């Protein structure tokens, strides 16, 4: 049985068992998705979009559906803030807390929101983004969609504290797969900060196959901090799709600290005039870690602004891949688009690939892009040494700067500070290699 057939068979078992009680619209959505998955198949490196990332290691061994676990496992992060916790893809009510949320936010786990008015709302939004249709992994997620986070901010709702959505994996000795799902819809003028956090509870290899859909209504302002802190034995494949209305603001911060193999497709559609997008990500890789970001920013309307900043720090034999496509549609005049991808390559064995792709079909636009890759700059090292820092301190400071530059753009101060600690810890634990001899 090949890998595609394996998951189709898994789907049939799922559809005939737990999923059979779902509403008809959801069963239809899943059936269409598994058909789409079977038609697309798993990508290969012969496909342009997957040229640098082979999913062969993911297909070698079977991943069973992640089992339900009891109330064991460590306490979830997130402190006292409102949070939804999922373990192996299933809602863990006893670990979650929604106390203190304002009345205008309708939040809960997907499995509990499939019927009645909530069900109609989910049906209207779930899996509707066009970008999901061409991605086999996203289709597979939709085929298995069962639980996840649903956050609906009604008109004008302001969430003062960040809402944490935590997906913990506890495979428990056998390779398993879960399909986390997040649906965030912010109606007009709503404001909120969401943290998506992916963590591991044990060292068994597992596969997280996640999809996040975000709709930002007219005048709404949303910040999403995505912390991928999977185990170094994990596979993490994800799609994030966003759509923004008129004069809306979205800040998206994908931060990658974990996983052996990570692939994240991010598609942002600026679908209302005056929309503003900040896509601001960081990948800190060591060992043999591989992280691939494919981003699409689609300027579909005039007067929108998109600033994309992706920084990578690549140590040991790690590899970072960035492909950033910017599309400016006809009529999307006065687009202001900026993209940078800076990679710090700390070792001879590490590698960075960076590909900007600009497709501009309007004439009155401002689009800039730039990519750099290389070791620590000897000029910068000497400058720091000339101020009294030892070479090792200078290296550590410059390396930290690649992360700090990204974290500095987080708008929520508390999150910025806690993630600064995580990045420092990650760098302190890592090995900073010898730079090239100074010139």
């Amino acid at each position, binding site marked *: 049985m090949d890998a595609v057939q394996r998951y189709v068979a898994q789907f049939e078992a799922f559809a005939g068992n737990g999923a059979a009680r779902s509403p008809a619209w959801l069963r239809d959505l899943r059936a269409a998705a598994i058909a789409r998955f079977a038609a697309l198949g798993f990508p290969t490196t012969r496909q342009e979009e997957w040229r640098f990332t082979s999913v062969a290691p993911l297909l070698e061994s079977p991943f069973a559906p992640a089992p339900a676990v009891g109330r064991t496992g460590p306490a979830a992060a997130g402190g006292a803030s409102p949070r939804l916790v999922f373990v192996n893809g299933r809602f863990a009510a006893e670990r979650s807390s929604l106390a203190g949320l304002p009345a205008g936010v309708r939040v809960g786990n997907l499995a509990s929101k499939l019927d009645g008015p909530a069900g109609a709302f989910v049906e209207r939004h779930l899996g509707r983004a066009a970008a999901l249709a061409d991605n086999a992994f996203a289709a597979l997620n939709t085929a298995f969609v069962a639980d996840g986070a649903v956050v609906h901010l009604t008109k004008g709702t302001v969430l003062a504290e960040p809402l944490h959505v935590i997906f913990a994996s506890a495979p428990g000795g056998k390779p398993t797969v879960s399909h986390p799902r997040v649906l965030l819809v912010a109606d007009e003028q709503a404001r909120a900060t969401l943290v998506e956090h992916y963590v591991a509870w044990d060292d068994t290899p597992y596969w997280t196959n996640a999809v996040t859909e975000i709709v930002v209504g007219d005048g709404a302002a949303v910040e999403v901090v995505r912390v991928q802190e999977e185990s170094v034995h994990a596979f993490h494949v994800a799609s994030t799709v966003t759509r923004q209305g008129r004069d809306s603001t979205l800040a998206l911060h994908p931060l990658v600290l974990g996983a052996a193999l990570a692939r994240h497709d991010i598609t942002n559609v600026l679908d209302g005039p005056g929309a503003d997008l900040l896509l601001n990500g960081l990948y800190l890789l060591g060992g043999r870690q591989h992280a691939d970001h494919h981003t699409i920013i689609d300027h579909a309307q005039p007067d929108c602004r998109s600033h994309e900043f992706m920084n990578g720090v690549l140590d040991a034999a790690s590899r970072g891949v960035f492909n950033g496509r910017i599309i400016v549609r006809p009529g999307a005049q006065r687009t202001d688009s900026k993209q940078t991808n*800076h990679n710090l390559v700390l070792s001879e064995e590490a590698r960075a690939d960076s590909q900007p792709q600009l497709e501009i079909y309007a004439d009155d636009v401002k689009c800039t892009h730039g990519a750099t890759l290389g070791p620590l*700059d*000897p*000029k*910068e090292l*000497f*400058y*720091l*040494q*000339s*101020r*009294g*820092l*030892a*070479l090792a*301190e*200078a290296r550590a*400071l*410059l390396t*930290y*700067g*690649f*992360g*700090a*530059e*990204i974290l*500095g753009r987080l708008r929520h101060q508390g999150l910025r500070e806690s993630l600064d600690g995580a990045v420092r810890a990650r760098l302190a634990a890592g090995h900073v290699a010898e730079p090239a*001899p*100074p*010139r």
Partner: protein
Amino acid sequence: MSPVKTPMLEITNLHASVDGKAILRGIDLVVNAGEVHAIMGPNGSGKSTLAQVLAGHPAYAVTAGSIRYEGKDLLELDPEERAREGVFLAFQYPVAIRGITNAYFLRSALNAVRKHRGQPELDPLEFLDLLAEKLKAIDSDDSLTNRPVNDGFSGGEKKRNEILQMAVLEPKLAILDETDSGLDIDALRTVAGAVDKLRRPDNATVVVTHYQRILNYITPDVVHVLSAGRIVLSGGKELALELEARGYDWVRAEAAV
């Protein structure tokens, strides 16, 4: 009879090269505490090389001669050790540091120096108090404090930032490498004025410059003219004015005789 005073800086027969090409060909220079020396000279004469060699830039190889700083062999020290011992180079082209704010960088540098001096390190709040004091001392504001080091700074801001670092680190020997280059008259007055405010009887300043104008604000005790890697003429502050009026060609012509 007064005790023999150890010069702060004593350069003897210094030869240095970069990529195998000889740039400095026998520099002799003595700088005492409390003095300001101007090193002038045409482009390519070796002025910046001298500044870089003093700071310990690894691209420059010292092929002969010696540099003694407070009686110690400066060439034995790594760049960071020189900085901690009180040598400061204000860069001609200050380097931008991604993601690191000026405040964070300055505190890291100051604490490295303080640790070396056996002083306690400063926490962020103590440091901000000290920074406010230093900004006041050089008539500057805090507009650069929370920006990444030199990142997107104008030419004037970069030079002002070098002087702020100098004010915070309190070097004994400050070397200003073409600090006046790229500055308009107002920025020059601000930056050079700040340097002048930092002068003390126990520190010394070496001003490397092509033009005389910065010396209107920082009056030198001695002016040296560098040509083809050697000091070919030394004199008082009036020598700078003469160079401004007559150019460098006559010095080169006399040196060749």
